[in-house]
């Protein structure tokens, strides 16, 4: 025994953490400045595992930071800027108090300011890192850009957010990278695929805000401050990846078209540039003029450890994607003034469509209502007077649903005044055995091209495969018996004969053989599975049964939901009939 007495709280977790107040004192910053610094540098509070130890025996709930994080913060040059700013404010206040206006002017001219460029580089060492964190930045910028310019936050910040958001939208349009849109009651969710990374963001509807009071605007403004810097650099890089000029310039011809007639009526010269950009109707100027013959198909190199099938599926996916990108190509839309212009223009343009609106609605209208080449007019009124022959009058939901369904949906459901089919969320992916609403089933069928009208377009192979998948789903719903595999086999054989009869004769011999092999393989697999079940140990069998029971329960629940739905539908129908009768009577 012997040695020095070990004191409590001088080693271990007590020394690894530091309370917020102590950290603040160590950095010699006020609390708002400290909070701002932490947000900018990406230093977040921690919850220690043993709070009582860290808190030196007290159990009071405190905010803790890692000591090493705070030590890292000590090296930040911005800390000095914060202190300078504090002094600046003090001097300014003094000068104001003494009414020394020349001093006030001088001080204001030399207002200390800082930049966050180095922090962006530090937090996101590579471009991909930045792309992964883009969700937040986009949501924040889109949100702030809709704020009224009435002093909730700096007008400059709002303007910058608007500029960056518009730039990003223009990039998405130019790169055709939008994938999903979802109109929710909260706002509009978008998903784009930017350089292989899925980027999701939400934009509020452009109605008047009610500003919530339980939100700390200062914190939000600090986040936005950082995210605007990030988004600016990301935009620059994205534009350059597409050979576009940054800051974006409207393409020469379009610019000439826009300039003489409009521009002055709408905005000042300084503003009209951004306004024109935000109209989203003109394409952007490139550094090198694009040559359309230049688009050579990429050579494909097989990835190691990839079978031919995987290659095939990948190729098909690629083709489907290309097709999706050109969804609205060749279509000309006209937006009526009662539909939300910006989201619609954005979505239509990012799938290759052309879009215009009334000249008095917004800058950047490219053609008039009376243009005979318009194919679709987006209308959100119960009735349209004076319909022009040769164009579809549709409700705005058609555009969004078509994008999510990856095909131009039949227009009949979306005529003005018609009860719309539900707007499904593209972000929901059903697991096997989950309940799938009939609308979605219909949509899936349509995607496969099962609709008699559109059937012949799709490729045969794809149809086959997806048919199989669908069949599986159907089966899951139908059969609740033990002999699932056998049923599957039987059905498959039936399907085989059926499909052979039904399909147009377009299948090559080689392909057929390949199909056969697959089928044989499947048969063998199912056979093996059955044998494996027979050979199972008692305990394993018990587990297996349990799992199967769970699956079946899911199926049963799904069936129950389906039945409910059916009942609901019939009830609705009857009601409708009754109301119709009543109206007639």
């Amino acid at each position, binding site marked *: 025994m012997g040695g020095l007495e070990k004191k409590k709280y001088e080693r271990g977790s007590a020394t690894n953490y530091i309370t917020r107040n102590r950290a603040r004192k160590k950095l010699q910053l006020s609390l708002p400045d400290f909070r701002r610094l932490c947000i900018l540098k990406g230093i977040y509070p921690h919850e220690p595992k043993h709070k009582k130890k860290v808190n030196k025996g007290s159990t009071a709930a405190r905010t803790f930071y890692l000591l090493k994080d705070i030590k890292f913060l000590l090296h930040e040059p911005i800390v000095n800027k914060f202190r300078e700013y504090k002094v600046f404010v003090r001097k300014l206040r003094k000068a104001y108090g003494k009414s020394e206006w020349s001093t006030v002017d001088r001080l204001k001219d030399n207002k200390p300011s800082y930049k966050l460029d180095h922090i962006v580089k530090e937090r996101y060492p590579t*471009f991909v890192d930045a792309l992964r964190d883009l969700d937040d930045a986009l949501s924040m910028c889109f949100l702030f850009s809709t704020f009224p310019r009435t002093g909730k936050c700096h007008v400059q910040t709002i303007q910058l957010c608007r500029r960056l958001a518009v730039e990003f939208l223009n990039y998405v349009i130019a790169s055709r990278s939008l994938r999903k849109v979802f109109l929710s009651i909260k706002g509009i969710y978008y998903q784009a695929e930017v350089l292989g990374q899925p980027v999701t963001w939400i934009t509020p509807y452009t109605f008047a805000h009610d500003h919530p009071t339980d939100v700390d605007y200062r*914190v939000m403004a600090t986040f936005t401050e950082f995210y605007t810097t990030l988004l600016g650099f990301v935009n620059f890089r994205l534009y350059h990846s597409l050979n576009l000029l940054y800051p974006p310039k409207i393409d020469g011809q379009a610019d000439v078209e826009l300039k003489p007639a409009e521009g002055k009526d709408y905005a000042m010269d300084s503003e009209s540039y951004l306004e024109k950009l935000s109209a989203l109707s003109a394409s952007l100027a490139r550094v090198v003029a694009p040559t359309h013959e230049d688009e050579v198909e990429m050579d494909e190199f097989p990835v190691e450890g990839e079978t031919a099938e995987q290659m095939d599926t990948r190729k098909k996916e690629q083709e489907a994607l290309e097709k999706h990108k050109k969804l609205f190509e060749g279509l000309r839309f006209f937006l009526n003034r009662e539909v939300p212009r910006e989201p619609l223009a954005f979505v239509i343009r990012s799938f290759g469509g052309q879009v215009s609106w009334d000249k008095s609605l917004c800058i950047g209208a490219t053609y008039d209502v009376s243009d005979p080449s318009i194919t679709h007019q987006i209308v959100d009124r119960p009735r349209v007077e004076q319909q022009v022959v040769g164009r579809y009058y549709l409700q705005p939901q058609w555009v969004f649903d078509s994008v999510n369904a990856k095909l131009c949906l039949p227009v009949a459901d979306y005529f003005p005044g018609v009860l719309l089919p539900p707007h499904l969320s593209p972000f929901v992916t059903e697991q096997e055995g989950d309940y799938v609403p009939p609308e979605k089933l219909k949509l899936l069928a349509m995607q496969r091209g099962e609709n008699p009208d559109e059937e012949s377009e799709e490729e045969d192979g794809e149809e086959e495969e997806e048919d199989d998948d669908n069949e599986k789903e159907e089966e899951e719903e139908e059969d609740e018996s033990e002999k699932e595999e056998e049923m599957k086999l039987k059905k498959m054989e039936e399907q085989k004969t059926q499909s052979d009869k039904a399909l147009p004769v377009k299948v090559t011999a080689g392909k057929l053989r390949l199909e056969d092999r697959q089928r044989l393989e499947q048969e063998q697999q199912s056979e093996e599975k059955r044998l494996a079940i027979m050979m199972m140990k008692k305990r394993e069998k018990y587990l297996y049964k349990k799992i199967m029971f769970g699956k079946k329960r899911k199926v049963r629940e799904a069936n129950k939901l389906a039945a409910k739905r059916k009942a609901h539908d019939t009830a609705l129908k009857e009601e409708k009939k009754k109301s119709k009768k009543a109206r007639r009577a």
Partner: protein
Amino acid sequence: MAAPAESSSFLGLGPGSRDPATVRRRSRGPRNRKKGWKRWAGPEARLGREIGDFLEDVVLQQRATGGLIAEQPDEGLFFVDTGNAEKDRQLNKGKEKPLHVDLVLQPDSKVPAPKNILAHQIPNGRKEKRRRQFWEKQAEKGVLPRAERRLRARLRRGGVPPEKAPEKGRSDPERGFYDIWAADNPLERALAGQDGWFLQQTKKQRVKRPARLRTKPSQVPAVEVIAAGGSYNPTFEDHQALLLQAHEVEVRKKRAEDKVEKQLKIPAGAELPTAETVFQEQCEGLLEESGDEEDGEQPAPPEDTPKTAPRREKKTEQQRRREKEARALATRRRREKAARCRRQELFRLRSLRLQVKRWEAELLRRRQARLAKRRAKDALPRRLGRLKYEDPSMEVQLSEELAESLRTLKPEGSVLRDRFKSLQKRNLIEPRERAKFKRRYRLKYVEKRAFREVTL
């Protein structure tokens, strides 16, 4: 009798009394205070003041009459008024009197104003002239002054360079960006190619960000997409599912409220305190004495004889010995049994192994449970401060609130709040309540005269 005497101006009869006329005026107060240090106190001060007054007077006389009045001859000072006031008035009738304002503004000093020398003279005139001559000579040779040379060079370069307004910092809407991830970005260009050790020692290189900060504090995605029932035009089932969720949240809230209510309620058997009981309770200790007196009649509580433990008889030697023997026997038996058991366990090896296996399995299970628990906790928002994170209320529209078309849609909730709560949920900021405004002093109501309230 002394008091009236002193109050009158008669000579006092006291020992220290003096003639008031001869009493010197006391110099101002004690000299140990600053007040008493005044320099112009005393006879010399009086003299000085007199001289000052005199000099002032002289200057005034000079200003007014051009010399001392005492030295002027009588003719200069006085004249005999032989005129007639009536006549004067008649004579001066046509002449306009100068305005009083002009009179006042006229200089009344007889001393002439000093001349402005600078009006006739250029400062450094000779030097400037020499310099001009020098540069003229130089210009003949073809040499120009520096400023001139620079101006001409700028002209040659092509007009005045457009002055770019300096950026107003990070939030300037016109600010420019560059490729920050390129190999030679402006951010690192200054330090490129320099010795790393030198940069580190001179603190020019930024401190490397620790790798620990690269992990996010939560796995929750940045943008959580609302459930399918939150569509503006949802399917029936999705909407019902969302409604059910919202309903469950409400039920939970209600239950918590009810619980508190129930705890606060008066239990069924109890009665509300009446004024009488309250009063009684208040004078609970005070009335005790009287009560005691009344109770005095009752017999005193029965005296309790203190119970003592039953005394044991002393053990005999024999008893002790026997007990000892019995103890020894018991220990021996136990030991033997243990040894026997141990020997027997050799034959129980199989079952022992099974036991060990079972125990290990149990340990594994516990470890996994612990892990699972921790993982489940990771997904939840942590406790980062005084307040716990609370989920925002769910955005949901009732069936009758659902919009028929996009035009009639009434948005629910606020994206701003959603973002803010998301930041809290992802452990990026600690949940906080708004700082309460606390006034240190009481406000004083002052009615301004200018805005006095009109009361009729």
